């Protein structure tokens, strides 16, 4: 969509579109370019070290391993867009995972699956709303509130687990979430549907803009975009079907990607999130209820953490006292930032959560294949995060020099 945004006002030829894009890149608006290049480099490096990296089986593993980070990072993108931070997402995901697991223990008191899932996700919304209320109404910086949350929700995880130590999941739905795969025919059907819908939406946009006498993307560019989507998504479906198939998690991440991209791009709420992140005072003067936007964003962030918590619980098929701990928080924030969401607010897309999560999961997975331990993983992931932020800072400088910031 970056190319679409950048060229929205030119109905010229494909050449114009490419030139516009290149002008943007040179003036520092890099979009997803650095991260796509990064992913290619990562793939080449790991494949040259261990030829199991680029196999169908490892490809499916990568999708499953990146899903939880991508899900949680989508919520982080929202808070980063406001220029805020949420340090509690790790243990909030743990709380949700533990609630679902404990409620579903088949001890005669278990609740039905939908109720358990709803309560787990609802706890996320409640926690986020609570954070948001304290941040806006009392005026404590989000860094401190969610740091307190990080500690407190860790406590809640320990209390909920109690003396059980580990709760093994026995619920089919929850286990299937991260461990089941789409039948091959269904995955191809969804592929065709996705490509058709994308083409339809793009063409409808051109029709409406033509009617209003506004410039639009050249049709050749749209054809290329549709073709690229068909090929890329087709490759994913094909390779995954060589192994176990498309994981359900792929659909889950795809669903939230479409939902939040729609919310950020096409609704008033989304527009106000960008406005508050870009210039809070301007937003306030425009009559936007800044507090309400912030509270809603923290609620969304914790909700997505709760979804991620269910995914993590499902992947491990159990929850224990360590639920939500470890590298979850740091990897999720790193994913959003590596994907290109600015820490300074107002700039970023939901897709950066997915791209960033793919980078993080690839490094984690690749180093694991090379037999390296956590020490090397953290060292290298930290380096990549620093590199991503450096690219962001340098591109800002380039923008300032070309008069765009």
């Amino acid at each position: 969509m970056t190319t679409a945004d950048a060229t929205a006002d030119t109905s010229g030829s494909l050449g114009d579109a490419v030139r516009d894009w290149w002008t943007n890149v040179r003036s520092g608006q890099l979009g997803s370019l650095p991260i796509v290049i990064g992913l290619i480099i990562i793939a080449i490096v790991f494949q040259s070290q261990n030829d199991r990296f680029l196999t169908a089986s490892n490809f499916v593993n990568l999708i499953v391993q990146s899903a939880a980070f991508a899900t949680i990072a989508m919520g982080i993108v929202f808070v980063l867009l406001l220029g805020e931070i949420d340090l509690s997402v790790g243990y909030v995901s743990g709380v949700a995972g533990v609630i679902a697991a404990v409620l579903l223990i088949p001890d005669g008191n278990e609740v039905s699956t939908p109720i358990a899932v709803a309560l787990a996700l609802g706890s996320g919304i409640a926690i986020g709303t609570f954070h948001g209320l304290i941040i806006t109404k009392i005026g404590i910086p989000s860094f401190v509130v969610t740091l307190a949350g990080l500690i407190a929700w860790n406590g809640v995880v320990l209390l909920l687990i109690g003396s059980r130590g580990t709760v093994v999941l026995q619920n089919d739905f929850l286990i299937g979430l991260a461990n089941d795969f789409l039948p091959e025919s269904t995955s191809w059907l969804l592929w065709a549907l996705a490509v058709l819908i994308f083409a339809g939406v793009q063409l409808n946009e051109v029709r409406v803009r033509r009617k209003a006498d506004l410039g639009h993307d050249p049709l050749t560019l749209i054809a290329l975009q549709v073709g690229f989507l068909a090929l890329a998504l087709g490759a994913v479906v094909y390779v995954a079907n060589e192994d176990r198939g498309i994981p359900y998690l792929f659909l889950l991440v795809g669903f939230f990607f479409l939902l939040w991209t729609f919310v950020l791009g096409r609704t008033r709420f989304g527009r106000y999130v960008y406005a508050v992140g870009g210039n809070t005072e301007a937003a306030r003067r425009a009559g936007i209820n800044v507090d309400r936007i912030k509270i809603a964003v923290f609620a969304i962030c914790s909700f997505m953490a709760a979804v991620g918590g269910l995914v993590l619980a499902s992947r491990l098929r159990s929850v224990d006292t360590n639920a939500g701990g470890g590298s979850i928080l740091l990897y999720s924030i790193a994913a959003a930032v590596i994907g290109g969401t600015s820490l300074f607010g107002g700039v970023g897309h939901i897709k950066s959560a997915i791209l960033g999560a793919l980078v993080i999961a690839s490094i984690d997975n690749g180093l694991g294949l090379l037999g390296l331990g956590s020490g090397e993983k953290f060292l290298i992931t930290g380096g990549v995060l620093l590199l991503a932020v450096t690219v962001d800072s340098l591109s800002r400088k380039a923008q300032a020099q070309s008069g765009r910031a």
Partner: protein
Amino acid sequence: MTDTPLLELRGVSKHFGAVIALHEVDFKVYPGCVSALVGDNGAGKSTLIKCVAGIYRTDGGEVIYDGKPVNIHGPREASDLGIEVVYQDLALADNLDVVQNMFLGREELEALRTLDEVTMEARARDTLQSLSVTTIRSVRQTVAGLSGGQRQSVAVAKAVMWNSRLVILDEPTAALGVAQTRQVLDLVKRLAEQGLGVVIVSHNLHDIFEVADNITVLRLGQNVAEFKRTEVTQEQVVHAITAGKLTKVPGIVDTEEVTA
């Protein structure tokens, strides 16, 4: 110029604690005219426009808009009356594009409550065209990439898009270079030509003499002079700003007024 003012302030006062910001100020704005408000720092210019914009409540006097006395509570009510203020800091979000900024807080929606980008883009484009703002290459460009004059143009266009009848510009040329000041002053003239009442607050007498029809001088919160541009020299205005005769000696506060 018509005889009935669009906006008339009669004896408007405003104090903050013991500080008298405005003391019985009169001010008139006519449709199709540019009224300048000048004065040194602390003369009460900003307080006056904030009273008109509904940000401050007046402590005394009358505000008459369109022949009817009004009480403006809040910026929303001011907008509803057709009063728009372009503040010096412009209040634009750098990360949003021109269209998004112009419609911020008042987005057009489609049937399904999604943003109607096409209608907004077309209206933004038409508004900019009607003001002959031609230097903006694309209305889908982010505001961060615009020059100071272009940003001022966007802020003004944003203000006049809503059938506004009175536009107040606070120091519109303060941060601009020569060419960009020209752009903005031309824009101010076009607003008046379109029949709007325009108030321009400025320190720059050169700019004021270029666009204003009437000049009101404030000093220490009081009216000290009222000029027609064609009948006055810059020296006379400067004299009024620095040494205009005050009706009330500042610093001496009636106890009545403070407690009122």
